[in-house]
């Protein structure tokens, strides 16, 4: 799955998961729950809707706050995580609602935000 970082990955919210089955996506959300096995965690998007992220290897660190996941959407509308980045919120908090507003615009005006 290394090549996933070479291809366009649209930013999506939970509601878009179903339309991107099998495709690489970028999902930003706040950590809600982490499964005890460390191979699964749940994120909430700007609207508060949950998305499940799966890992091939269990997490080797504590994650919390807002993270950005790059991965492929599975048939069950979960995200198979290829990589993730934790957003540092020490300087300023990340505004999930505002991010969601930006997502809406990206999806409403695809002619200005083409995804490859």
């Amino acid at each position, binding site marked *: 799955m290394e090549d996933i970082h070479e291809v366009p990955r649209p930013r999506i919210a939970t509601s878009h998961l179903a339309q991107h089955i099998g495709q690489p996506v970028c999902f930003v959300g706040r950590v809600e729950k982490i499964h005890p096995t460390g191979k699964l965690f749940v994120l909430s998007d700007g609207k508060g809707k949950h998305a499940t992220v799966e890992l091939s290897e269990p997490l080797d660190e504590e994650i919390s706050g807002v993270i950005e996941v790059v991965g492929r959407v599975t048939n069950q509308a979960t995200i198979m995580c290829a990589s993730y980045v934790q957003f540092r919120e020490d300087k300023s908090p990340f505004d999930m609602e*505002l991010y969601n*507003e*930006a997502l*809406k615009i990206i999806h409403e005006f695809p002619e200005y935000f083409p995804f490859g």
Partner: protein
Amino acid sequence: RASLSFLQAIMQGENVSKPVLQVINTRAIATGNGPPRYRVLMSDGVNTLSSFMLATQLNSLVEEERLSAQCICQVNRFIVNSLKDGRRVVILMDLNVLKTADKVGGNIGNPVPYNEGEWQQRPSAPAANPAPSKPQQQNGNLSVAGPAAVKYHAPSNQFGKVNAPSSVKTPGGSQAKVVPIASLNPYQSKWTICARVTQKGQIRTWSNSRGEGKLFSIELVDESGEIRATAFNDQADKFFPLIELNKVYYFTKGNLKTANKQYTAVKNDYEITFTNETSVVPCDDAQHLPSVQFEFVSISDLENTPKDSIVDVIGICKSYEDVTKITVKANNREVSKRNVHLMDTSGKLVTATLWGNEAEQFDGSRQPVIAIKGARVSDFGGRSLSVLSSSTVVINPDSPEAFKLRGWYAFDSEGQLLECASISDVRGGPASGANTNWKTLFEAKSENLGQGDKADYFSCVGTVVHLRKENCMYQACPSQDCNKKVIDQQNGLYRCEKCDREFPNFKYRMMLLVTIADCLEYQWVTCFQESAEFILGQNAAFLGELKEKNEQAFEEVFQNANFNTYEFRIRVKLETYNDESRIKATAVDVKPVNYREYSKRLIASIRRNAQLG
């Protein structure tokens, strides 16, 4: 046979559909120089009541003896008016004679005079009120519901709208003919128009040496044109509760006189004054009439609207102040006033002032949508709105514009998050950043900012694309408050002309010429000490040393400063130097970009532009 309807029901203001009554007697009342008025004694078989007046357009029925004692008639349309003494009068607007007197042959039943105040027992309820007609919506036009939802029951202490809407029909062709508003003129005294009320003002009272009185005005519209109408004193009392904004009525008979254009923008040479002969009857069949036209101006556009213009505005009431009472010096009267703050999708906030009753009764809880027709633009604090007595204020109008606003504000959440700049901000003059007006460099140039008499200030987000290293600083007077360039005496001393002193030293002071750019335009900007130090990330003294001692390090500072993006507060002014005029721009403040606020502005701007086209 249709049974006779209850007089009691009619008099109590209940909805009775096309009551059938027997005429017991008719009597002509002299009216001076107008046509006679006929008073009719009616019976429902149980009671008689003489409080019926025939509308003058039906006079011929009496004169031709079709309507006469003992005939049975069906009243198609009537209005119940309350007199000042509490007595009720029923005006018969349209009726059919079902059975002429000769065919009836006598009084039905043994009716006794009806005594208002004594309710008689009745076996059955009056005719049920049919469902109210649908609100009038038109494609493309803005239909606005009246200030309160129209209720089809009669309030107990007011004039009842006794006519159930669906029982009202256009007058039969034999009676009053409807003429277009455009044809009204002072030389024609008998006319009926069918028009929609597009504006309804508040009741205004006056008191002067000649007496006192009250009036209210309305604007009427039909397919042919528009006209203003005013009701004074008794007519004001009579018609104010009856007439509702956006409803359609038949208006019959009033005085026509030349319009006083000073008080109105209505396009008609004449205007109507109601008289005691004027009648106003609801009209049902009027989908074809144009409805209240609002032409909303976006709040941000108000900044460019000349003061004293009359505009229509719609916005969410984001906040509101308490009602206060002020004394009007001119007549020493106390008037209530209240400021409310409206915001629309442009992200701008404007303060609108309500007066009188409207101010007192205003309820801004739950952030209603407010539409104002005919507000006046004032230049108080920049731009504000004043609601005039001729303006109409509608709270939560039933219109697509209102729904769109409500949706944008409540559900899209961007409305609530939006940092709104008030165009009515009284604090903060042009020099301070309190009134942040964000522009792109393109807008600043195309709007010719700085070309007026005074300097203009604006804020923008721009990227540094070039910095001029040469002459970016000068040797300045070391005194605390003096920044004048000193002259190097070449003997280790530096002279300041302004302080008239010589110093063994100087301080470096920045004057950095920077080119900033955004997506469409670029701009040369001069940055003095604080701005330059911020952009370069070093203070002037250190930079001075670097320049003298380490050329390479000095260059690196400039390279690192390039291609960074900041928020700039820019002052632009046209400066003339030796016959040459040029716009000079100075960065009075440079700050890191607040991306959150910037994003919100961009989102609002995108949404705004999307709506336009």
